[in-house]
């Protein structure tokens, strides 16, 4: 007993002493430009691991091509644990200790917003990669924050435009019970009502995020007897919702619209049980035949032996945007980088993208189409690429939302 206790003590002591030695070693190459990368690599790895792979692929290509301004790009990657307070601490550390030029990344909206506030208050550049919250560039936007991925509003607007073409009048919605779900439903309602004043929303369900009681929720939706259903659930919730809905016949003869449902992160796990005929946003990576995308796809599959997810393409585009911005700015000074970001245009595998001057939102678009099942796998058919630029509110509305400072 004494022996084991002493052994454990020694091991614990050794571990504690060893930690700083292991963690503190960051290579300091003088001729690199450092980029701080913050993401929830452990909270939602299904999304963030593909993101990281996309980032690293782009980085490799950029550096192989000689880097930017004659310097190599170096990524300092950190996990925020899905906690906003932790993310801000890491941001401080990246700037103070690792001397990064800017930070990018994040997936969860609240973490992205925490970093938005950090960037605004500390006058540091933050490129939000994946968080979808509308507020990030609008109500809470600031000079130092930019966002790449099409926002909740944009994707909901794309779907609403298509949905308006359907005769369905009675709509029901189901969305996770937090800010993203609320925004997604509000945006969809707003745009759909504009185009179709005659529709009515007859039921709303708000399951807790990743805690859906799918059977009861499906029943509640069925009870309202809608013509169409707008779904915002994703991940494990989506799988449960689809399975219960199918078994209980909820989707029969109804139009179902699914935000993000066509993204490989969410439709792949469903395999042959993927919903069919849903109107969704997503990423039909197999079928995009543009040469730019083909090049990306080949490189990605060559590097990782698997297909890209939406996170991969966002990660890849994020690095392209940063490289293009640095090239344009010719400096790693924050104000110059911010000025370069404004109105920055660059070509990506998904087409040309511009960071709007007015609100710092990129015009990266999304793929809208119908779901289908082929060879035991959910896919997207009849899809089109919708340019994000066409799904943003009028400029004066945007100006009103953004704080004047």
């Amino acid at each position, binding site marked *: 007993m004494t022996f084991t*206790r002493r052994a454990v003590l020694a091991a*614990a002591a050794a571990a*504690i002493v060893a*930690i700083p030695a*292991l*963690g503190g070693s960051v290579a300091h190459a003088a001729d690199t430009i450092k980029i701080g990368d913050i993401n929830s*690599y*452990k*909270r939602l*790895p*299904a999304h963030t691991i593909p993101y990281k792979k996309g980032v690293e692929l782009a980085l490799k290509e950029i550096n192989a091509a000689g880097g930017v301004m004659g310097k190599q790009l170096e990524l300092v990657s*950190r*996990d925020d644990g899905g*906690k*906003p*307070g932790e993310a*801000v*601490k890491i941001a*401080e550390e990246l700037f*103070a*200790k690792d001397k990064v030029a800017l930070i990018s990344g994040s997936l969860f*909206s*609240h973490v992205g*917003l*925490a970093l*938005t*506030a*950090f960037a*605004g*208050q*500390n*006058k540091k550049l933050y490129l939000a990669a994946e968080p979808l*919250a509308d*507020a990030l560039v609008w109500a809470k936007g600031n000079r130092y924050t930019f966002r790449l991925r099409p926002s909740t509003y944009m994707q909901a607007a794309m779907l609403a435009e298509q949905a308006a073409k359907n005769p369905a009048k009675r709509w029901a919605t189901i969305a996770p*019970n*937090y*800010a*993203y779900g*609320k925004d997604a439903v509000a945006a969809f309602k707003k745009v759909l009502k504009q185009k179709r004043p005659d529709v009515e929303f007859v*039921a709303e*369900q*708000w*399951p*807790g995020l990743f*805690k859906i*009681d*799918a*059977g*009861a929720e499906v*029943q509640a939706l069925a*009870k309202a007897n809608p013509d169409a259903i707008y779904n915002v659930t994703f*991940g494990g919730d989506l*799988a*449960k919702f689809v*399975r*219960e809905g199918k*078994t*209980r016949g909820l989707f029969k003869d109804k139009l179902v619209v699914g935000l993000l449902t066509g993204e490989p*992160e969410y439709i*792949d796990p469903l395999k042959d049980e993927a919903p069919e005929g849903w109107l969704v946003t997503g990423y039909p990576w197999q079928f995009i035949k543009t040469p730019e995308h083909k090049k990306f796809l080949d490189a990605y599959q060559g590097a990782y032996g698997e297909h890209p997810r939406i996170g991969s393409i966002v990660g890849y585009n994020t690095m392209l945007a940063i490289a293009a911005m640095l090239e344009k700015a010719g400096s790693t000074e924050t104000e110059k980088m911010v000025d370069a970001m404004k109105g920055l245009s660059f070509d990506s595998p998904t087409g040309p993208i511009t960071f709007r001057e007015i609100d710092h939102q990129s015009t990266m678009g999304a793929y809208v189409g119908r779901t289908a099942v082929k060879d035991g796998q959910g896919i997207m058919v009849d899809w089109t690429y919708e340019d994000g630029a066409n799904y943003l509110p009028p400029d004066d509305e945007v100006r009103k939302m953004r704080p004047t400072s």
Partner: protein
Amino acid sequence: MGFYIVQVLTGLSSAAALFLVASGLSIIFGVTRVVNLAHGSFYMLGAYIAYSLIDLFGRGGLGFWGGIVLAAVAVGMIGAIVEVLILRRVYQAPELFQLVATFGVILVIQDIALLVWGAEDLVGHRAPGLTGAVDIMGTPLPAYDLALIAISPVVLAGLWLLFNRTRWGTLVRAATQDREMVGALGVNQAWLFTGTFFLGSMLAGLGGAVQLPKGGADLLMDFNVIAAAFVVVVVGGMGSIFGAFLAAVLIAELNAFGILVFPEITLVLMFLVMAVVLIFRPWGLLGSPEAPGQKGQQGPPEQPLRPAPVRVQMAGVAVVGFLALLPVVAGPFALVLTVDILIFALFAVSLHFIMGPGGMVSFGHAAYFGGGAYGAALLIHYANSNMESAMALGPVLAAVLALVFGWFCVRLSGVYLAMLTLAFAQVAWSVVFQWNDVTGGDDGLLYIVKSAWADTAQSWVPFYLLTAVLCLSAMLFLRRVLFSPFGYAMRACRDSELRSHAIGINVLEQRWLAFTLSGVAAGVAGSLYVFSKGSAFPDYMSIPLSFDALIMVLLGGVKTLLGPIVGAVTFTWIQDEISRFEYWRFFLGLAIILLVIAFPQGIAGFGRRYLGPWFGIRAEEAQ
């Protein structure tokens, strides 16, 4: 009509997995008194292992059901291994200390699951022969729901037979009622506990496995189920299997029908149920009162408070001197990290105040941290307040929350008290989370701007010094209170409620004020925190933060005054260092487990024992 019948049946089927998990948790708690946070991890492992086994065996009836049963047994064995390797070494530690070890286990299992099964969600196999739906008066009900509805009573009956018709079961029941007695009967307690862990973990694994056809396996299952499982156990009454069944059904049915009327009630419903049940039935629906003398008093009794000897005071002065010199010698990030550490140290000290000397364990202390955070943030947002007044008035919201919640909580004791604090914290959290118009919901309140003199964009030094002064003063104030008549009376209420009444102490009032004082101190920490981060989010009120504080206190040592500080420093610092690794959760979990085994009295408790004499802390006589 058909609709309502189907909704009832749907609720019953949702109750099944919940009941299985909760019954296992209840059995483990009833016998070993371990608050097993890792129970959710066993549930998750049940789902993953069953998924892999069904893949291996094929999807026929035998493959499917065989896979489920084998997965449950495998998880039971994992539970038993955890008990033998880790928990068995720390049963003699203060109450709840084992909880820290199980927290470490969660982290380790999370990373192992990620490594083995990958990041992508796995959608569960369907049960052969039960893929379709049954028509009930015109409304379809998935056939597998019927199987789930049947499973709970079968397991319940099996457990009843086990507990009433076998010698082992009788011993388990006896141990649930009186642990000492079983020891006295000459039963090998170690193996009884191991067996209990096997059974309890097996039930969790079974719960995870049988829900496969309704969902699948993913990496968030563990956290998502654990709170619900605890709620069911507490509502049903700790240690009562029938209670767990009743509570699972009650909560599932209330949810099934609640969402028809209030679709947004999903986040808070079960916590509301728990709060109401505990207020009217302080030991749950079918539970019985806890035996007295189990409030944090496991192990040797706490030693009398003695004023710090000279050498300790000198060490304290040295620490203050070090903190004062830090801006000169260290870079800006050291200040950022130290600000975090100081804030969490105050938060942990505030929890320790009621948990150690006060004998009231809180599982929901983040409510008051977040109360202070939102108090300050709301003032900045809506009252155009400056930093100084927001910081001063922010904790008032924490005080109000503590006064209201505390009034109910101090009437309970032990784990029930802890769970009521958790319930209230969740209610507060869900208000902040859902009241978008005022609190911004999950999008939070941004731009909690510091005053110009403390602007950290320029320099962290002024804000760091402000934090250091405020946190140290608050901690010293709480320490002073512990040495005051109030602090003595609070300890008196913990040591002997009977004697306290008999010398005229109003125990409830004393506890209520202690609870509030602690809430205010947590609120001070919270209001500092929002300014240090520049934004406020519901996370600052959430369960994980409450448990972080709990782990800091326990890891540091609940029976020493320095414990929470040592725990906060260790936990925050290790986490900061380790989180640079890819599989950092595995290493953090491992570090926590090793610390727990090495220091069963907490790190400070260990330090006191071995360094105490040098510092002039006199060794008290032991019985």
